[in-house]
């Protein structure tokens, strides 16, 4: 066992939004990476076929990613964990993949991890790599995540108003390509600044008082556009300014750097919530209450079908919606959700917001 050959470790991990290039940073010094192909219908189909029927949709996407990566030759699987059923998904997925006959090692993030315990655990993948190096790559990953989110926020707010269609997307793609190459924190910061400037130079045709909509809900379906039928892009195309708090950097920030934030969300959620709902439900209610007071036009709540923390949040959302006359629509995503249904409801929601706005302006 002395001579462990790490060359043979081929690591894979799931996709989520654009974050793959950041996750890559963590694993790169440790072992070879096998990237699962981009999420497609095939990914969901695989996940649905082999996953339990009642598991929520992120489970199925992850499982599909694993199967597609294992088929490409991966032999080492990484899964994180969270504050709901997600915390137990790793074990179940490992079991399913083993039963399917794949040979691999499974790595799950330690419980209640922080940067140091996570780095220690990761070191076991390749003990030859120093803990300092691993901590540094965690740092790189963090800065990449922050850069992605920073630019993504700007795009979300403005993409609906670009004069030349497609410019934002084109620039953002170039940004991701360049970001992938950055290997130093300083160069990440530079790329971020350079592209933010480029994005800000894109010509806009934005009214003074655009429709502003908040996206709330469970983080995976919020962050993975394939799983929510590109809801943000659909809204943008209608000329809506899209706001969202949930992103990987805010999640990391709230979990590790400033734990008080969670308490503040509960504070903001009063009087609609008194106790924590679990996972991100409290955040959802807090943000909804805050946005209703701040004069946003409406909110869209999205969740995987059967997501308990978000179901808990919903009854509070109904009351907020009533009290503040704040329109909220709800979507549950599942492998069976029809895209047409989502489109119809989204169109109607937009009509509702615009008619309400026109009526208010007439007064």
């Amino acid at each position, binding site marked *: 066992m002395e001579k462990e050959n790490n060359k043979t470790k081929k690591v894979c991990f799931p996709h989520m939004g654009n974050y793959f290039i950041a996750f890559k940073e963590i694993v790169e010094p440790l072992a070879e990476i096998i990237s699962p192909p981009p999420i497609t219908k095939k990914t969901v189909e695989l996940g649905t076929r082999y996953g339990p029927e009642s598991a929520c949709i992120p489970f199925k996407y992850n499982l599909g990613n694993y199967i597609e990566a294992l088929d490409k030759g991966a032999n080492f699987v990484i899964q994180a964990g969270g504050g709901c059923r997600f915390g137990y998904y790793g074990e179940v997925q490992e079991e399913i993949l083993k039963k399917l006959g794949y040979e691999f090692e499974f790595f799950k993030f330690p419980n209640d991890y922080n940067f140091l315990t996570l780095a220690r655990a990761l070191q076991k993948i390749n003990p030859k790599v120093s803990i300092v190096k691993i901590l540094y790559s965690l740092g790189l990953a963090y800065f990449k995540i922050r850069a992605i989110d920073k630019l993504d926020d700007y795009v979300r707010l403005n993409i609906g108003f670009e004069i030349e269609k497609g410019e934002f997307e084109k620039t953002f793609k170039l940004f991701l390509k360049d970001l992938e190459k950055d290997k130093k924190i300083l160069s990440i910061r530079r790329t971020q600044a350079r592209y933010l400037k480029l994005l800000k130079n894109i010509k806009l045709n934005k009214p003074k008082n655009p429709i502003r909509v908040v996206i709330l809900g469970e983080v995976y379906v919020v962050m993975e556009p394939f799983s929510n039928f590109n809801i943000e892009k659909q809204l943008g195309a209608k000329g809506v300014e899209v706001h969202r708090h949930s992103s990987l950097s805010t999640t990391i920030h709230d979990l590790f750097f400033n734990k008080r934030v969670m308490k503040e969300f509960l504070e903001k959620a009063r009087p609609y919530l008194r106790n924590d709902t679990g996972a991100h439900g409290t955040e959802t209610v807090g943000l909804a209450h805050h946005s209703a007071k701040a004069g946003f036009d409406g909110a869209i709540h999205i969740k995987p079908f059967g997501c308990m923390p978000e179901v808990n949040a919903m009854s509070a959302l109904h009351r907020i919606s009533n009290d503040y006359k704040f329109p909220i629509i709800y979507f549950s995503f599942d492998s069976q959700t029809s895209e047409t249904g989502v489109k119809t409801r989204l169109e109607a929601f937009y009509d*509702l917001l615009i008619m309400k706005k026109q009526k208010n302006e007439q007064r």
Partner: protein
Amino acid sequence: MNKDNKFYLGLDIGSISTKGVIIDKDDNIIAQSYLWTEGDPINAVKKVIEELKESLGKEVKIVGVGTTGSARELIGTIFNATVIKNEITAHAIGTLKFHPDVRTIFEIGGQDSKIIIIDNGIVVDYAMNTLCVAGTGSFLSSQAKRLAIPVEEFGDYALRSKKPSKIAGRCTVFAESDLVHKIQMGHTREDIIAGLCDSIVNNYLNNVGKGKNIEMPIVFQGGVSKNIGVLKSFEKITNSEVIVDEYGHLMGAIGVAILAKQSDKEIDFDFEIKDLNFRTSGFECGGCPNNCEIVCVLQGNKILDAWGNRCEIGREKALAKYKQ
């Protein structure tokens, strides 16, 4: 023919029925038609246009066309519609024309049901059924068939009942097995049908209507609103008056005609369009594992539009396929 007289066509192409109306500039209905879609929306619309033309009896100048319903994109593309609108907005606009003070719209159609909440003349909340057809028109008609009663007489049977049976309403499958059970236990058909009407209403209020602020005046629309049994159940269970009007089934078409009138665009609609040959053709893209199902709309051999693609590859393939 007076040149100032402009008219507008509204088409509502649903899963089960296709509705068409022509309105004048003051929103008066001057022609209407209601036919079965029978799984062929293009043909159904052609027939509707034919019927509208006949009932007009004179030539009118149509400058706006609006489409709504589940085939709105398809028909809108073919007939070069000025407005393509979702059925929620269309129903709200249409209903507000006849009932300006309406607060709640119940709509139960062939395969979907929705609730629209209106405050001060604008939509403030709405919901549509998801996943399941329980409590919609197709469920009612399949149960009518089981009981060998024409669906049109369903309502009268329900009214004769003194003591409606309790039928589980959460899901079509549960409702059906419960219904069979009650039949075999010897409940009368009248009681069962009345129970079915109650269960549809309860199912509707507990799913689509969940958490919604239901206030009077309430207008009930869609094909199922023609069923007096369901109407009475609604009145009983919500303990309020529920309005059904003669144009209930046409509201979507009227709404979208009004929206076509309000739009800035004007077209020159030609009734002869119904004689042109339109068809659709589908293929699987195969450009990536998504395998999007692309639908191409063709006039003769000319491609009008294509959809179903998630990215540009599918569109290019469709255009290349039908390139002259």
